[in-house]
Every structure is written in structure tokens, then in C-alpha cells.
């Protein structure tokens, strides 16, 4: 029989997280600091609106690009939060999670062989999506000494005449890094100079603990070259609803909508109705969750200081990214031993790119009580390792 598989797909490395997941799921009594989704339930008024939409029999497709009401709410949200004006009819697309928007956006923009710049450590799907879109992914290895921000020099060095799109993943999973206004202004100059486009993945925008999040699309001359991706998963604790969106220049959104129409048809109708309620009446929920995450973030940073574990202070998302280089182990060795000996799951930094070596992603999407138990075990483990070296 012939080989039924496409080389391009077979050659893509499976997600490093998947591998670790398989080890963890063998362990029945393990506790986890490894999840990339909120611990909160979706606020009840939002769930209630989803249920109500089902009761009213709203079980049909919506238009391909999504409900008009939802797209208008998104535009009003973008105006309110980022001071960016989008035309709901031409510049918005509702997708199945932010993930679909990444895929559609790259497929709509890339010609074979064009380069996509991917700063790492970052979310696991950018590189495979770029490859599937026919791009050549070019990795920018971010540095801990820059708090994993993208500097204009790093960007400048990575740009070639084939560079088409820069992926800008801030606030960042897995590092928790943010880009502040001045950081964005500095790279915007390089972007405009080389006439490249930006895919700004702002799914964690609401989880910023310093100043309010700034979108690169709000800077002068950037809206017309930026696809802004956001969604409901992180801000409103709606991961399972699978709902995200993209805002951007009409010509790109139009082509994205075309692929979306053929591949997906439309995002889930129930989720879209629930999301309208989220945008209309969910600002207080976001703030309550943000305050709770921030308390946990401070708790973890203090715990690391007390156990002498090196970690830059991250101001975004719900991750901290401590450095474990002092123990002379790879991230995977550390995570595996920590799991075996203390039954706590964390994700090795290398799951998010080679330059994550020497780091761990620790999620604080857990209650303080749970964090305390897990961090107690981390301290015990760290002290034991230091004793062994000792």
C-alpha cells in the first residue's frame, strides 16, 4: 500500500507538552501546576445566557464571520480597552478559539517560502501552523536578561527580505512576559521600516498586572499591518467554549473568512451568544479574576525569593518561569524527577522552544491552598537537590 500520509505533516514534531502529559497521566495521585487554563468556572450569567440561547432554539449556523451583535460588541470592546476603531462588518472574524485565528491568519498571508518570525519561548502552535501554511519559521530566541521581551535589535537581526509576518505573543505563555508601550514603540519602527506584518496574539491581554495592556495595533501606522487575535478563554474563563476572534485590515480578514467559511463554517452558536453577554456585562468578572491571579503571582514570587530560586518578575498571563540552571539538569530531567519524587507536574520550558532550556513553566491557575501544597513540595525538592550537590 502507498504511504497515506503527507510528508509535511509527518515531519512536524509532536508537541513537547503532549509527551509530558503522557507521563503525568500515568500517575494517579499527582497534583499539577501544569495547566494553561483558568481554574475559575465561566461566570454564571455568561453560562446562563448560553443555556437561554439553547432554550430559545438558537441552534443554527450563524453567518460565517459570526453574529453581528457579537462582532459589534467586540468593536466596542476594542474601542473601550485599546482605543482602536474596527469596522465590525469588514474587520472582524469570530473563530474557534484564538488558535483557529492563528491558523487562518497565517494561511491567508503566507506564500510558499516566506518567513514567519516566531519569538520563543512561546505557545506551541505558531511554528506548526506556520509550516502548514507553507512558511519557513524563523525562531527568535528570547533572553531571560531581557525578561523575555522582544528587543528591536533581536528583531532587526532576524529580518530578511523574505520576512512576511512577525508573531507577537504578549502577554506571553509560558514566560508571563509583557511588552510595555515603550517596548512596542521600539519594535514598531523596525516593523514599519521593513514593511512586515504582525500577528499579535493578545489572548492574555486582560491578565496584565503592571500598567493596562497596550496593543501594538493602537500605535501609529500599525493597525493597517496588524492582525490582532484575542478570545474569551482566558479573560472570561471560557476555554471549553472554543471562541476567539481576529481583528485586522479588511483585505486580510476577508481572505481569512474565506478559509474559515470552507473549513469551519462558523464558530459555535451557543458560545457566540454567551460571549455577547460576556462582553456586555463581564468587566467586573475579569477584574475579580485578575485580582485573584495577581495575589497568587505575588505569593509565588515571594516563595521563589525565599527558597532562593531565580525568577524574573513576570507581569502577565498566569505563568511564572523560574530558572533551574543551578541544579545542572535539563528542564525535562528536573520536571520528570520532580514528578516522580514529589508528584507535582510542571511543564519543562523546552516544550515552548529550545531556548526554554533551563526553565520551568509553573501555572498559577490554582487556588492559593493548592499552590501552597505544591510549592511546599517544590521547596523540599529544591533543598534535597542542593543537598545532593552539596
Amino acid at each position, binding site marked *: 500500500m502507498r504511504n497515506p500520509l503527507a510528508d509535511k505533516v509527518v515531519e512536524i514534531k509532536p508537541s513537547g507538552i503532549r509527551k*509530558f502529559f503522557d507521563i503525568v497521566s500515568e500517575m494517579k495521585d499527582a497534583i499539577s501546576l501544569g*495547566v494553561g487554563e483558568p481554574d475559575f468556572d465561566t461566570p454564571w450569567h455568561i453560562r446562563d445566557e448560553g443555556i437561554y440561547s439553547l432554550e430559545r432554539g438558537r441552534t443554527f449556523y450563524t453567518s460565517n464571520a459570526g453574529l453581528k451583535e457579537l462582532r459589534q460588541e467586540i468593536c466596542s470592546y476594542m474601542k473601550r480597552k485599546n482605543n482602536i476603531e474596527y469596522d465590525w462588518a469588514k474587520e472582524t472574524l469570530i473563530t474557534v478559539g484564538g488558535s483557529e485565528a492563528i491558523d487562518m491568519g497565517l494561511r491567508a498571508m503566507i506564500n510558499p517560502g516566506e518567513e514567519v518570525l516566531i519569538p520563543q519561548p512561546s505557545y506551541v502552535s505558531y511554528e506548526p501552523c506556520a509550516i502548514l501554511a507553507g512558511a519557513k519559521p524563523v525562531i527568535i530566541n528570547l533572553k531571560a536578561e531581557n525578561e523575555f521581551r522582544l528587543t528591536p535589535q533581536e528583531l532587526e537581526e532576524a529580518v530578511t527580505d523574505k520576512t512576511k509576518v512577525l508573531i507577537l505573543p504578549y502577554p506571553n505563555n509560558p514566560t508571563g512576559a509583557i511588552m510595555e508601550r515603550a517596548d512596542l514603540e521600539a519594535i514598531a519602527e523596525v516593523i514599519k521600516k521593513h514593511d512586515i506584518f504582525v500577528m499579535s496574539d493578545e489572548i492574555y491581554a486582560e491578565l496584565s498586572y503592571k500598567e493596562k495592556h497596550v496593543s501594538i495595533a493602537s500605535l501609529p501606522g500599525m493597525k493597517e499591518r496588524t492582525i490582532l487575535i484575542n478570545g474569551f478563554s482566558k479573560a472570561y474563563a471560557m476555554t471549553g467554549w472554543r471562541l476567539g476572534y481576529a481583528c485586522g485590515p479588511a483585505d486580510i480578514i476577508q481572505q481569512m473568512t474565506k478559509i474559515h467559511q470552507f473549513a469551519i463554517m462558523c464558530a459555535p452558536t451557543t458560545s457566540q451568544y454567551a460571549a455577547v453577554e460576556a462582553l456586555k456585562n463581564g468587566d467586573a468578572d475579569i477584574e475579580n479574576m485578575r*485580582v485573584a491571579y495577581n495575589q497568587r503571582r505575588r505569593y509565588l514570587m*515571594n516563595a521563589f525569593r525565599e527558597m532562593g530560586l531565580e525568577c524574573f518578575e513576570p507581569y502577565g498571563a498566569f505563568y511564572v518561569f523560574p530558572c533551574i540552571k543551578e541544579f545542572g539538569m535539563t528542564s525535562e530531567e528536573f520536571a520528570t524527577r520532580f514528578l516522580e519524587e514529589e508528584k507535582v*507536574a510542571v511543564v519543562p520550558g523546552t*516544550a515552548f522552544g529550545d531556548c526554554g532550556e533551563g526553565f520551568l513553566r509553573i501555572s498559577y491557575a490554582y487556588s492559593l491552598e493548592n499552590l501552597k501544597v505544591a510549592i511546599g513540595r517544590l521547596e523540599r525538592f529544591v533543598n534535597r537537590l542542593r543537598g545532593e550537590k552539596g
Partner: protein
Amino acid sequence: MREELLAIIEKNSRIDLKELAVILGVQEIDVVNELQALQDEGVICGYHTLINWEKTSLDKVTALIEVRVTPQRGQGFDNVAERIYKYPEVRSVYLISGGFDLMVILEGKTLREVSSFVSDKLAPLEPVLSTATHFILKKYKDHGTIFTQKPEDERELITP
């Protein structure tokens, strides 16, 4: 930090001072001073424990009593409210808008004890026009805490 501090200790008054300082991102001495100020100002009025008495062997009956009263000249409802809240078995007294005036929450050992309080003490008060007593049969949720279910983490252990 005041409102954030209050929100935390309203849910967990047993949290220790050092931890409070850490999660609020301030010094421990600032927390101590703020708590003292809040107590002095009467913002913090006590530290209680939320108990689901239904799970104990102790018998308790709680009743909500709607009370309609005639307000008194110059006093409004305050006087009669005071007459009522001085009884130790009265847990709470609220002035209410709508069809009645005072909501009295009463705790007793038995139905008989509660009803005799109403008939012997509450109803005979001169300004009281009428009462309607509702006994609580089951507490599903109290002080923001759901009694009937234990939350479980149903998430996958590792997700990107």
C-alpha cells in the same frame, strides 16, 4: 489596598498576616496598621466562622420574619428595631424596602421556641402591625459558599 484586603479576609479571616502582606504586595506592618484602623472605624465588626449546622447533631431552627410596623414620630423605625435586636436570639435585623418594613432573622432550638418568641415578644410590641414567619428548611448557599457540593478540578493535568 483597603478593599482588596477586606475582600480577602471576608472569605478567609484565618489567613496569617505575613501571607496577607505577600499577596497584597505590601509590608506586614502596613497590614497590621490597616486592620487596626478598619477595626477602630467599625468597618471590621468581627471575625466569624461559617458553619453548616445541618451537618452537626445540634438542633437549630432559623426563621425569617417579615415585620410590618408603624414608624414612630421623630424615631422612624430605629426605636422598634432596637427593641427587637436587643434580644440575643435575634441574629439580624434589616430595614427593608417593599411590602414590609423589618426583616428579622431568628435562631432557636425548636419551632416552638421560635413561634413563642414571635407570639410572646415580637407581635405584642405596640408599633408592630403584623408578622409573617418563614422557617428555613435547607441552606443551599450561605455567605457566598455553596453547601451542597464539593468543587472538583476537572481540568486535564497538563495543557498548553
